[in-house]
């Protein structure tokens, strides 16, 4: 087991495509780190540089206090689970799991003991003599994990291991991986584009955009204190709402009405003109289902609900609004960066399941104004971020740099969509 330190890692492909740009991330011994971002953000490339399948253009990769830039994958003693599992189809499950031990010329008795142990952990006992071709997706996934845990590797690396499974199995395997990692206490780096996996699995999460690190923090810090528009929009489901806002004193003017925000937040946003306000869907509520003493006029507004999706425990309400062109442009770009389609500007609100609001109703909605964030529309920077609780933020320029890199990438390859 070992800590992994990435120091100013750069990856530039032969054709000049800048895949990873000056990324520095420390993974502590035993930590579960998630690399997350939309497709093409360089997260897989970064993982492959850790394991040694991809050359490092610049920077230092230090594993367990040793610089490994020039070491072959076999000399780094890491184990990896590939997206498509990469099992050896000509070998039985037993031999697949035993493969790393056989390569290390371990005696048969030791091989047998370790394979049995791994197969017991992963409940593969009855499949040991079968070939991978006869296994289901989830079983293959477990064999791939067996092959990873069977030897005493310095760290585990996962490259989108669950993306080929169906939704139910994915949930089960997610908890399984989490449990396994906690039990073995081994340093783990896990690549995913799924923000749910990122939030649930990681001790810390590194969010990447176009090969530039945006924020490296715990899931809670990312959720409560996103460094910029990109992180705010990426983390959380349904995503954070972005609205045009004007700040005057402690009053914030939104398309629906005016809210009062705490003074310290307001102070950071003075004199900046038109801003983008970010409010998470859960920070709204139907005023009629709340205790009367919590609801004040300053924190409520009336709006006509367009669509309601009732899920039982909660309901999502959609309220369309008009955004001025300068804000809309930024939001359209953001939507593109997040692999989404640019849709109409609308507010998504998560309501209590008890709410009786129906489609077309004029409803009174309460907003938790303390949780509101204000973003600078030109840089995307979060002006109201609580820097002490936001983990590592590479700097306000991270988002702008990603934009720049994006242009360079497009110049090299306009259809770049590698993960």
């Amino acid at each position, binding site marked *: 087991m070992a800590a992994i330190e990435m120091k100013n890692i750069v990856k530039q492909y032969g054709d000049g495509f800048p895949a990873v740009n000056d990324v520095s991330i420390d993974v502590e011994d035993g930590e579960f780190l998630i690399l997350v971002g939309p497709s093409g953000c360089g997260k897989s490339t970064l993982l492959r540089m850790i394991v040694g399948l991809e050359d490092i253009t610049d920077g230092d990769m230090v594993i367990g206090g040793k610089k490994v830039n020039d070491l072959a994958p076999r000399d780094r003693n890491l184990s990896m689970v590939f997206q498509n599992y990469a099992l050896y*189809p000509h070998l039985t499950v037993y031999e697949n799991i035993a493969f790393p031990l056989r390569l290390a010329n371990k005696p048969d008795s030791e091989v047998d003991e370790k394979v049995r142990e791994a197969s017991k952990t992963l409940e593969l006992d009855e499949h040991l003599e079968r070939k991978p071709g006869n296994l289901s997706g989830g079983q293959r996934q477990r064999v791939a994990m067996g092959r990873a845990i069977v030897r005493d590797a310095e760290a585990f690396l996962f490259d989108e291991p669950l993306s080929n499974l169906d939704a139910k199995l994915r949930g089960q395997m997610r908890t399984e991986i989490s449990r396994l990692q906690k039990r073995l206490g081994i340093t783990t780096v896990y690549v995913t584009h799924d923000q749910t996996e990122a939030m649930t699995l990681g001790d810390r999460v590194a969010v990447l955009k176009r090969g530039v690190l945006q924020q490296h923090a715990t899931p809670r810090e990312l959720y409560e204190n996103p460094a910029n528009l990109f992180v705010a929009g990426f983390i959380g489901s349904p995503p954070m709402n972005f609205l045009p806002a004007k700040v005057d004193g402690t009053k914030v003017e939104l398309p629906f009405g005016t809210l009062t925000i705490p003074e310290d937040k307001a102070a950071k946003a003075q004199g900046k003109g038109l801003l983008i306000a970010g409010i998470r869907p859960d920070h709204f509520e139907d005023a009629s289902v709340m205790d009367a003493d919590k609801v004040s006029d300053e924190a409520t507004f009336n709006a006509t609900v367009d669509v309601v999706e009732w899920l039982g425990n909660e309901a999502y309400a959609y309220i369309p609004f008009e955004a001025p062109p300068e804000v809309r442009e930024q939001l359209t770009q953001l939507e593109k960066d997040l692999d989404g389609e640019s849709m109409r500007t609308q507010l998504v609100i998560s309501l209590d399941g008890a709410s009786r609001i129906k489609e077309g109703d004029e409803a009174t909605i309460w907003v938790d104004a303390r949780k509101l964030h204000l973003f600078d529309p030109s840089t995307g920077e979060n002006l109201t971020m609580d820097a002490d609780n936001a983990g590592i933020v590479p700097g306000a320029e991270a988002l702008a740099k990603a934009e720049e890199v994006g242009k360079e990438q497009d110049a090299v390859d306009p259809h770049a969509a590698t993960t």
Partner: protein
Amino acid sequence: MAQQTGKTQVGTWIGFVLIMLWCLFPVAWIISLSFKSEGETGAGSAQFLPKEPTFDNYKAIIDNPDFTRALINSFGISLIATVLSVIFATLAAYAIARLEFTGKRLVLSLALAIAMFPVVALVGPLFDMWTTFGLFNTWPGLIIPYMSFTLPLAIWTLSAFFREIPWEMEQAAQVDGATSWQAFRKVIVPLAAPGVFTAAILTFFFAWNEFVLAISLTSTTSSRTVPAQMSFFVGPDPFNPPYAQLATASVIVTLPVIVIVLLFQRKIVAGLTSGAVKG
């Protein structure tokens, strides 16, 4: 298949029998001929089954030292040519499938051009060269041209197989602690086994059946192969070749080919890679 109607089943069987007759009748004729006595074939009788089946032809041919020597030559030359050709082709095909290097297309087109070259056109130059180099009438004298004619096909076949094998297999092996060579030998080659066996069979058949070079580049039984040796079975009367003897030799020559196909057929299991990756 279970839903097949009686009519289509009958049709399938009729077609099947017709094709079998078309393919196997000449073979059956040769086998029947090999059991006829010399007198019977010489009399010009055209009946299918031999009147008095006899093993004399087989006894005679096995006692013929020229023929047994030719068999040994055939086996030796074909096997060595096959093994070398498959080894070289595997390495070359792997490089072509995996590496990016300048002149890759040139190598492939050249290989194809060689395969298209008519063998007969090379007989003269090769004869001259081999007599100069002292390779005339030796095993290497046949093995080298056989390899050069079978390598292109083997390389093309194998590189197609290698391209089908996902890169991740090899990367997984390297992460698991394998050297490039171990990854190649323990993962890539077993996965490409159907391709390797296909290439081996094609190469072996070419070398086993080849006649033009075998007759032109040899002069004694020390390196003459069976197809060439058979052309020396003339018998006492030039107008009356020993058909029964020739048929017997043909049967004996065909047997190893059938055995090899049956052996390798079990190895050529389609879809061996299924289950390697999600699919």
